[in-house]
């Protein structure tokens, strides 16, 4: 079978699997729809949460980014894993004990205020829509490269699949589908990484391989360490050393922090810890989630380094003088056709040359690093097909999780808790499904007509979560004195400050989006951490000047601090 047929077969089989699981585990009540009935095993939940969390960006883009910027890419590696420590230690067990369905539920009850609930709903919706637009786009890109349909058709197919299983299955369907998606995704990512590691260093584990000596042509240790070679090549070609950063330390610090605290404030991640049966399981589940994420995230830097060496050597040749374009391997030609690799023979010698500065003749899109790896390493066609299925699994699992938060926010937080408190369980479930339907249409619209700044919008999502929801939730648990006036003004201050800063530099004045104009040298990507500090300060000051917290709310806070008596997640 050729690559095309294989890809259709493998992608088709995985899609069929997701749909079968969705039918088998469809939701019958709001409780099953929102929190999967509260009966998900912690390891299963950990796997599903990991699939939910790892998006098309993690799967497709991250290794490429690290490969091109080296050490500077570490902020994403640490930032997108370190947040789970905060979740496990500061939030998951207490929110599970609280035992409602959503993040706005907690904010609204803890701060005894509809205004606080509404602010939380707005945050949840903005964050989720921001994310899902990017996922739909990712689905379209994978479809267009591997199935050779146009991007729009790819987006329609993705919309249809996600709509089908999230509307039918709710959280219960999504959880079990995501387990399958995790397996597809991790297998697809690990196979090429392990192959490369064995070929280049002789080590099975890429995590060890990328710190080891390279093998020479006859398979013996060459005495040259991979990373030393990479540093050498980088400096020789005019790039910064691979293992040393070029960004300012303060900016690296703030971006890493914004990603960590942002992770711990994302509604679609937090809500996962409502689905396990006990408080104890919430603690366990956070750990397993990170185990499953770590398998991918510790492999990403290894793959990035392998691909970098491979790519430079393929283009510049072992002698570093450039390889004749006529003799280029076929993957260069096939990616040239998609426009993601371009060659401009400036000196007219017919050879390709990659470097920083004027001698460079190659334009290479970062996103192809993962997608082209199987071809670069000469792996069999089924591995290429697997990568396509993996990329789609990553995009679909995240979209489904986000869609659920959107539909829950509308049907539960807005309709049931705000506008029509008397609706029946069945009606509420119907509204939840309708909201998911509308959500998928809006997401699809953004996928087909991308706002053109998907990467910039991701910064908004994290900044928002870090500067609004994270402080409100943690203060709600760790301080009995924090009142509604403090929490609301803190959320508003953090939110407006972060949005204002991001919009100012990203959209209004992109021309001056450089370090000398930034506040304290912090880029818009990292401003969420400063917004979070502002939130805490404003909340504490306002709290001191306003009325104390009612006695019954203080008792509620005392009750969520220990596990005993936790029931299943409930509506009442």
């Amino acid at each position: 079978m050729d690559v095309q047929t294989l890809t259709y077969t493998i992608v088709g089989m995985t899609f069929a699997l997701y749909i079968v699981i969705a039918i088998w585990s469809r939701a019958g009540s709001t409780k099953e729809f929102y929190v999967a009935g509260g009966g998900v095993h912690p390891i299963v939940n950990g796997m599903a949460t990991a699939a939910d969390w790892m998006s098309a960006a993690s799967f497709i883009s991250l290794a490429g980014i690290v490969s091109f910027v080296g050490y500077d890419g570490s902020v994403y590696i640490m930032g997108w894993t370190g947040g789970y420590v905060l979740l496990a230690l500061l939030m998951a067990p207490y929110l599970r004990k609280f035992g409602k369905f959503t993040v706005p539920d907690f904010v609204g009850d803890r701060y005894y205020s509809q205004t606080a609930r509404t602010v939380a709903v707005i945050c949840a919706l903005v964050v989720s829509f921001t994310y899902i637009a990017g996922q739909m786009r990712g689905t379209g890109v994978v479809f267009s490269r591997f199935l050779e349909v146009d991007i729009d058709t790819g987006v329609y197919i993705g919309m249809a699949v996600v709509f089908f299983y999230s509307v039918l299955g709710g959280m219960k369907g999504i959880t079990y589908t995501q387990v399958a998606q995790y397996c597809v995704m991790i297998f697809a990512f690990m196979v090429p990484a392990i192959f490369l590691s064995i070929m280049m260093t002789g080590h099975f584990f890429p995590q060890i391989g990328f710190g080891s000596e390279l093998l020479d042509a006859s398979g013996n240790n060459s005495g040259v360490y991979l990373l030393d070679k990479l540093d050498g090549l980088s400096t020789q070609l005019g790039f910064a050393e691979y293992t040393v950063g070029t960004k300012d330390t303060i900016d690296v610090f703030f971006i890493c922090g914004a990603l960590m605290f942002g992770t711990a404030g994302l509604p679609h991640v937090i809500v996962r810890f409502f689905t396990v049966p006990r408080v104890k399981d919430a603690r366990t589940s956070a750990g397993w989630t990170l185990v499953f994420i770590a398998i991918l995230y510790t492999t990403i830097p290894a793959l990035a380094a392998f691909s970098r060496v491979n790519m430079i050597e393929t283009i510049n040749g072992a002698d570093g003088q450039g390889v004749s374009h006529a003799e280029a391997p076929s993957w260069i030609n096939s990616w040239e056709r998609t426009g993601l690799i371009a060659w401009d023979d400036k000196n007219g010698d017919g050879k390709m040359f990659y470097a920083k500065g004027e001698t460079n003749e190659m334009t290479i899109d970062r996103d192809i690093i993962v997608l082209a790896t199987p071809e670069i390493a000469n792996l069999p066609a089924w591995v290429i097909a697997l990568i396509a299925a993996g990329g789609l699994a990553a995009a679909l699992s995240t979209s489904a999780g986000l869609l659920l938060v959107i539909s829950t926010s509308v049907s539960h937080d807005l309709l049931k808790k705000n506008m029509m408190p008397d609706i029946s369980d069945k009606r509420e479930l119907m509204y939840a499904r309708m909201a998911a339907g509308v959500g998928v249409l809006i997401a699809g619209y953004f996928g087909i007509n991308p706002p053109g700044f998907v990467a910039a919008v991701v910064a908004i999502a994290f900044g928002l979560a870090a500067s609004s929801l994270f402080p409100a939730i943690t203060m709600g648990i760790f301080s009995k004195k924090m009142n509604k006036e403090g929490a609301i003004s803190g959320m508003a201050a953090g939110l407006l400050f972060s949005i204002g800063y991001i919009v100012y530099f990203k959209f209004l004045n992109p021309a001056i989006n450089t370090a000398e104009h930034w506040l304290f040298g912090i880029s818009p990507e990292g401003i969420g951490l400063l917004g979070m500090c502002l939130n805490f300060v404003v909340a504490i000051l306002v709290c001191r000047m306003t009325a104390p917290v009612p006695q019954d709310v203080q008792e509620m806070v005392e009750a969520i601090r220990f596990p005993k008596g936790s029931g299943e997640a409930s509506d009442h």
Partner: protein
Amino acid sequence: MSFEDKSKADQYWQENINLVIKLLVIWATVSFGFGILLVDVLNAITFMGFKLGFWFAQQGAIYVFLVLIFYYRAKANKLDEKYGVQED
């Protein structure tokens, strides 16, 4: 109230807070400390073929995060039993 009295509840919470603070100090040290602020100093040391600071930033920090979460889980569960507030 599941605790025998108010002072027991306060003690339980205090022990929990101390544990969390201790673990968060380690969390910040390996990521923000070793991975970012002290990275140049640590890069002078070689560890398993890696510059140590670079290794913490792209590998080591994640392993430490994992240990922290599972350690917290074990300790917190023990703490619940000590005060008799574990789930039935």
